[in-house]
């Protein structure tokens, strides 16, 4: 019980200085943004970080991270993030919990619109990450928050002794299945391919869990029924046969949608909306760097996000020096 009262985050009172031109504004407070903040602080850059929702981003809801080096017994997402944040604050980067509405570049200066006013900066480190992709069924909107969930850590407790489906076959999906198995009576993983994409060690944990079963080569078609979720209709990708799983909840982990609306039309993106950069994390707009999950990249992990951010911050440092 004692860890229920450790300190996650207390909003610090930080005035935004609208007269200042900051060296860099970091947008997004996940692992990438916080790493950029640590590096920026150590370079003694005047830096601000904006996070719209909760420090930590997607990883904050991860129950256990087992592939981030230095923590041989694994560490929870919220604990890891707390350490990141402490380190960022220690080196002086200011962290604000508010959303950015607009980014504009006029001349050499970026104008970042927030509820506190227009903040000016020489550079931007864009670390907005991604959100879970929506379940592609017509009933998504109707049942979102009423049985369709995108956060197993947040919502698992509502499905105590019930049956739930998890859609997806990657690391997140199997992590979710394991989390849910602590509450639900039965967890059914629905995945469109025969093979799961998740790391082998997670697959093994799920296969040996008596509560978890699999429906492979199936895709979701409909969430039933009228008032609340009572079933998930799925279709076999080969035979096209339909069947209905009787479930009380559907948890979704089928990949990500990048949070890149703010820079749409400004930078180059791939067909799914992830931002293209070169190996220095530079985008088409000079002074605008993209890092982490929002970037077009072959792997989206905490460690790769941190790597991106370290490179970007050091490029920002050079860029600022060159401004003279």
């Amino acid at each position: 019980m004692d860890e229920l009262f450790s300190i996650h985050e207390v909003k610090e009172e930080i005035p935004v200085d609208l007269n200042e031109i900051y060296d860099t504004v970091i947008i997004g407070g996940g692992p990438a943004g916080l790493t950029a903040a640590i590096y920026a602080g150590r370079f003694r850059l005047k830096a601000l970080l904006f996070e719209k929702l909760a420090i930590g981003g997607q990883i904050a809801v991860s129950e256990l991270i087992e592939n981030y080096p230095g923590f041989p017994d694994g560490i929870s997402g919220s604990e890891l993030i707390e350490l990141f944040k402490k380190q960022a604050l220690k080196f002086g980067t200011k962290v604000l919990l508010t959303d950015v509405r607009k980014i504009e570049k006029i001349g050499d200066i970026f104008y970042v619109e927030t509820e506190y006013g227009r903040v000016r900066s020489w550079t931007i480190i864009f670390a907005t990450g991604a959100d879970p992709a929506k379940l592609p069924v017509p009933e998504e909107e109707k049942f979102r928050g009423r049985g369709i969930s995108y956060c197993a850590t947040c919502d698992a407790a509502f499905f105590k002794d019930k049956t739930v489906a998890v859609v997806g076959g990657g690391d997140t999906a199997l992590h979710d299945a394991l989390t849910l198995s602590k509450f639900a009576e039965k967890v059914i993983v629905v995945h469109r391919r025969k093979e799961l994409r998740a790391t082998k060690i997670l697959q093994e944990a799920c296969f040996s869990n008596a509560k978890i079963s699999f429906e492979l080569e199936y895709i979701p078609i409909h969430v039933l029924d009228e008032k609340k979720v009572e079933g998930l209709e799925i279709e076999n990708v080969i035979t096209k046969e339909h069947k209905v799983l009787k479930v009380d909840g559907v948890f979704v982990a089928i990949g990500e949608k990048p949070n890149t609306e703010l820079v749409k039309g400004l930078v180059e993106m791939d067909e799914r909306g992830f931002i293209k950069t070169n190996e220095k994390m530079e985008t088409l707009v000079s002074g605008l760097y993209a890092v982490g999950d929002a970037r077009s990249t072959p792997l989206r992990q905490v460690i790769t996000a941190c790597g991106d951010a370290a490179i970007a911050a050091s490029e920002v440092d050079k860029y600022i020096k060159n401004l003279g």
Partner: protein
Amino acid sequence: MERLLKEKDAQYIKDLFEKKLEGEVTLTLFIETKGPNVTKFNEQYLPYTEEIVKEVAELSPKIKMNIYTDDFEKEKEYNIKTVSALFIEGNKTNKNIVYYGIPSGHEFSSLLEDIVDVSRGKTELPEDIKGKVQKISSSIEILVFVTPTCPYCPRAVRTAHQFALENPNIKGVMVEANEFPEWSEKYNVYAVPKVVINEGKGEFEGALPEDAFLEAIYDAIGIKLV
């Protein structure tokens, strides 16, 4: 009971309070030990809620504490819906900043931030939002359903509580969904945060930015936000 706060966290909070607190804050907690209102969930969580309130109150001379046990007269005065109810009170409050259920996990930060705001009698909401919040003249009750493991929930709780501090007509209420399953069921809470305004006149899921949150309140009472 063993102490809930780790020593280094307690020290951190003590420093924070010393730096930030101005006016006096009272933590008013209602508990019941018997009777039909006490559920097995309350029984499980109430001792911890009581303990954490006591430990937090110890961390600053500016924090006072009132714990009412089976005091039905006082309960009426505060118009509480059920146990456990925790009110954060100061000069500017109107028994309108409330926690039902244990403020643990991610919500512990909300509690600390609320104490700071209530003590100073002001919030850090942007000025234009403050203005629009203060204009509301009808009674508003905002329920924010949360779980302690939800990192997005404090944003919603804090927004409701900040609105309440800015306007005595608004009551901001956190509800810990695990502790109140029937209450959660009444409003079909299957994902958190879930916000319910005036008993269902308005509702939404997820943590919204302050202006969108405010718009949902205006919508619920049928006023167009301009």
